């Protein structure tokens, strides 16, 4: 199978849908002729022009609110935030409007809007360009949250986002954007709420989110040399969250680690952990463990930045500790 980058895969999904659905338009800063800071829309402006590839003033609240109104009246907006940190200026429109309109209108108004941007720590981007924030959106009823970890998932999940009628946060970790992976030529879509078992094993389960998925896989390859047989699950979407796959795996391994670059407190690991205790307590042979980034704004200096993200050594230690419990 051909291999393309994560960004190319996601762009292919967007291009395919824009070709068949004239109600799709993209807004953002530099997503028009320039093709996006991260090449998210490269080549599309030439095909579709400014109404569908709309460069905006730097008014995140404004264009998110505008896109809410457009989604309510027959369009399918894609908001390209570039860095997802910029979404924070539009939180009122998101949490008070976009997530609630379908409910408030008793289901008569749809909210087909995709909110995309790059997340995560890396490249000394410093604290205004390094956030992830997905637990905020998972907490609020009304959002779908996708965190693809590879090109295949990026394309399949964006296809689903662009054909559904709900608001979707589509979050692309900046360290994944240029990674290559197999993507079929034929069109496909991946359903939300279906985790992927990306490595089978029997000694412990690791739930690995976004950038942690490839990192954990690398570590597990090393651990296999010591005959540690680890199962790795990538939830792919955090809302809806496929707990059934996680519970089934824990039923097999009896041990669970949640590896997530974002913060621990009130995070995805806390939620998964609570649900496993509620629904799978008897399967547990050891306390559930979490591995998170340090609970701090992101520092700039490489020596500080690398100190706050779980590296391969930290992942390996967390897995070895879990198995030794």
């Amino acid at each position: 199978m051909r291999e393309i980058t994560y960004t190319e895969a996601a762009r292919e999904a967007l291009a395919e849908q824009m070709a068949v659905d004239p109600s799709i338009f993209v807004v953002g800063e530099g997503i028009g002729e320039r093709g996006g800071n991260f090449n998210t829309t490269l080549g599309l402006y030439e095909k579709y022009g400014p109404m569908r590839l709309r460069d905006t003033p730097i008014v995140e609240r404004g264009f998110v609110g505008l896109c809410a109104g457009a989604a309510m009246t027959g369009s399918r907006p894609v908001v390209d935030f570039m860095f997802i940190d910029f979404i924070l200026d539009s939180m009122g429109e998101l949490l008070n409007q976009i997530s609630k309109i379908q409910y408030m209108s008793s289901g008569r108004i749809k909210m087909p809007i995709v909110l995309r941007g790059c997340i995560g720590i890396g490249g000394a981007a410093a604290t205004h360009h390094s956030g992830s924030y997905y637990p905020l959106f998972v907490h609020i009823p009304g959002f779908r949250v996708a965190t693809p970890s590879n090109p295949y998932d990026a394309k399949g999940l964006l296809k689903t986002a662009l054909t559904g009628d709900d608001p979707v946060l589509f979050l692309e970790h900046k360290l994944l954007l240029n990674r290559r992976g197999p993507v079929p030529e034929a069109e496909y879509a991946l359903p939300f709420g279906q985790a992927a078992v990306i490595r089978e094993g029997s000694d412990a389960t690791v739930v690995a989110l976004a950038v942690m998925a490839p990192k954990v896989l690398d570590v597990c390859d090393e651990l296999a040399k010591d005959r540690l047989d680890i199962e790795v699950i990538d939830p792919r979407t955090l809302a809806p969250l496929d707990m059934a796959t996680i519970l089934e795996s824990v039923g097999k391994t009896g041990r669970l680690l949640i590896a997530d670059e974002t913060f621990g407190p009130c995070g995805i690991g806390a939620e998964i952990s609570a649900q496993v205790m509620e629904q799978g307590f008897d399967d547990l042979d050891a306390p559930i463990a979490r591995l998170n980034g340090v609970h701090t704004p992101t520092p700039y200096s490489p020596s500080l930045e690398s100190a706050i993200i779980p590296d391969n050594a930290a992942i390996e230690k967390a897995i070895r500790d879990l198995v030794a419990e």
Partner: protein
Amino acid sequence: MANDRTASGSEPLVALYRMMVLIRRTEEQLARAHQMGLVPGPCHTYVGEEAIATGVCANLRADDVVFSTHRGHGHALAKGVSPRAVAAELMGKATGCSQGRGGSMHLFAPEIGLMGTSGIVGPSILQGAGAGYSFKLLGSDQVSVAFFGDGAVSNGAFHEGLNMAAIWDLPVIFVCEDNMYATEVAFRDATRVQDVAQRVRASYDMAAVRVDGNDVLAVRQAAEEAVARARSGDGPSLIDCKTYRTRPHAEGMRDGGYRTAEEMAAWKQRDPIAAHAAWLIEAGHASAADLEAIEAEATTTVNDAIEFARSSPFPDPATAADFIFSAGA
């Protein structure tokens, strides 16, 4: 109603009166219902401002859309939502226009273009602009109306929304209902430029007019021009309507300390309904008896609406978490 004396062409003018009276009677009855404890939540009435919703919506088609505010009962009624559906929604009933999910501040009837009233100041401007974007993108000649108060004018949503509508020539009519107070903060204390139309012309190069918001004919005329401009692809407009609410910000709220009895009394003298009634009679479009009949009809309609709302069932508690996501998702 026999209208032998009414000249041909009078009906649209009389219809403005009919709508304003319907809004007034509905609001009065909702205020009463609130006092009786029949409205479990807040109730912000539109009493005194009826000419604006009436004059604007008289120019709209059913497929044009309206985005409204916390003071939105009048917009809902003028867009065609029935008094029954409004009253039932305020009473939290299953028959309400939002099926009991919204209340006074979240009225929805998208099937006739009421895209929601809102508990937050500002979003109506942005969403209104967004609907305009949709219509332009999809090649429709529908237009979008965003209602908001003077309280929204200093909010970032106003600047961002009007700027985007202007640079992209969106078919939107922005209607500022300047009732002089944002809740209880005076507009004069919130801005150095109270002439919103002047500000909009200067800042966004947008067509903007200032009108007497208590003169339904003036509002209707301004809206007619703005709707024609939007529908023909010539871009957005702002109508800056000067008006006054003669009841408290919300029912049951203390109404003193920020405005004087003299000011309120003076504005009550400028009642938009009484003014239009006098004009209709003087210009020979209707008789006093005609107008009395209209009032009686409105009273009957609204009494029926209140009775309908009271006797309607509450929503099934088992449905409390329905509609969070689209069907089939």
